[in-house]
């Protein structure tokens, strides 16, 4: 649902109606693209666009809708969930890797623009987790070598609750 611009104010409106204001926004929704993963030469244009919509434009739009309450109260944190694919050019991870690199850069620019106004932007990589998405991307990986998503989430919260992470 983060792929469509018109759904964003429904999400932010429902959240703000019930919470009043927001201190922490976590953009974790993301989309791998068609699986099994393909070479860029075999990736459909439409599929690439959908990956960017979900992983880059979705977080941008939701941030834009939630941000005013943070700027007006002069504090707040936006956590964008990143990946090592944002840095390493893994073959067959073209659409996803590009989208995560763009998200990381988006996070840095948000941060430059709004740091002095009390809103903190952080991109963090939770590492390889035992999730359906991971199984779809790397079906033959050993689940016992992957971290539990709940543990990873707690570690991320612990990290951002420390001062000075950027």
């Amino acid at each position: 649902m983060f792929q469509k611009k018109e759904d964003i104010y429904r999400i932010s409106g429902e959240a703000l109606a019930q919470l009043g204001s927001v201190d922490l926004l976590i953009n974790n929704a993301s989309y791998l693209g068609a699986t099994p993963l393909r070479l860029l030469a075999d990736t459909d244009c439409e599929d690439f666009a959908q990956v960017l919509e979900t992983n880059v434009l979705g977080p941008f739009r939701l941030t834009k809708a939630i941000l005013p309450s943070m700027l007006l109260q002069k504090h707040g944190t936006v956590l964008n969930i990143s990946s090592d694919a944002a840095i390493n050019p893994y073959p067959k991870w073209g659409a996803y890797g590009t989208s995560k690199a763009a998200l990381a850069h988006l996070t840095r620019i948000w941060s430059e623009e709004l740091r002095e106004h009390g809103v903190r932007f952080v991109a963090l990589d939770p590492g390889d987790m035992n999730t359906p998405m991971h199984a779809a991307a790397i079906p033959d990986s050993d689940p016992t070598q992957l971290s539990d998503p709940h543990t990873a989430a707690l570690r991320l919260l612990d990290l951002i609750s420390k001062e000075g992470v950027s």
Partner: protein
Amino acid sequence: MTAAASKTRARSETKLLVATSREGSTELTHLPFKSLPLILRRGDLLVINDAATLPASFSGSHLRTGLAIEMRLASSRLEELAEPIRWNAIFFGRGNWRTPTELRSPPPELQSGDELEFGHGLRAKVRRVLSQSGRMAEIEFEGEPSVLWHRMYLAGRPVQYSHLREDLDLWDVQTVFSGPPVSLEAPSAAFPLSWEIVFELERKGIQMVRLTHAAGLSATGDPEIDAELPFPERYWIPDETAEAVNQARGEGRRVIAVGTTVTRALESAVHCNGVADGTVRPGPGIATLKMTPSFQRQVVSGILSGFHDSGASHLQMLGSFMEPATLAQAYREAEEQGYLAHEFGDSCLILTQPRGRF
């Protein structure tokens, strides 16, 4: 004045008419809106409304007759700021916003207990009819608030009027300050503001604080009901806002309201048991005040606003900042210069001398 008919009009094109009153005379200046930081000065206090705009128009069916009905939420019946259950609403029959509200067909005859259905599981019951014309009634939505918010967002669309060309999306009715979704129409005075302008104002030593004011419907098309406008509106003033306003006022600095909603909230918040003592009280309240040209403002010395229809309650309120004759002159001059009216139109900043403490 010609209405701005397009929601996609570039914000950078917005014009700003500045009317400065000093010792009985008024000076008019024309500027691009982005020059606002040049007009305001260090020490000015800008107060904005951070309300987001709800989808407040629902089209569906009147179950007893099976006829089409449009319901526009007009004002909340409950005191809690973000409370979606009970409302006063305005009703129309078949049709949509492209027909001017005064020409819309009447709704099917409403009776207490009638059920209304709007799709996506959103249902409401008529509690009682509130106007002779049968166009206004108190309703109650079915369901728990959390479910209700979801259904309202799925079934509703923004309220809009026939001067526009395009359907409005929820994105089009938010300001850059949009937070709690409690407004039924956009607090549109802030539409031309950007965070770039806000940060520039801050750098210049112009302080900005917020309140939340649930703007109600601005027009119903029914003369009997329109005479009651503006409806009671809920507001909430944070402690730090009341403090900043009272301090600015005590020091003789200008308090500039962005929009009529902010003006109404602040001027309502100084009234206690019907007596105005000039001190803004923080917390929740319900604005029932009707500001007319004879209204004695206690707090707000300047207002940033759009241009709206003559006769509208909006213009009545502007009359409390400026002599009606001078206001008419300002409107004429703006019209000659090609200013556009309504929510996507141009802006007017009226500045008066701040009053001393009473």
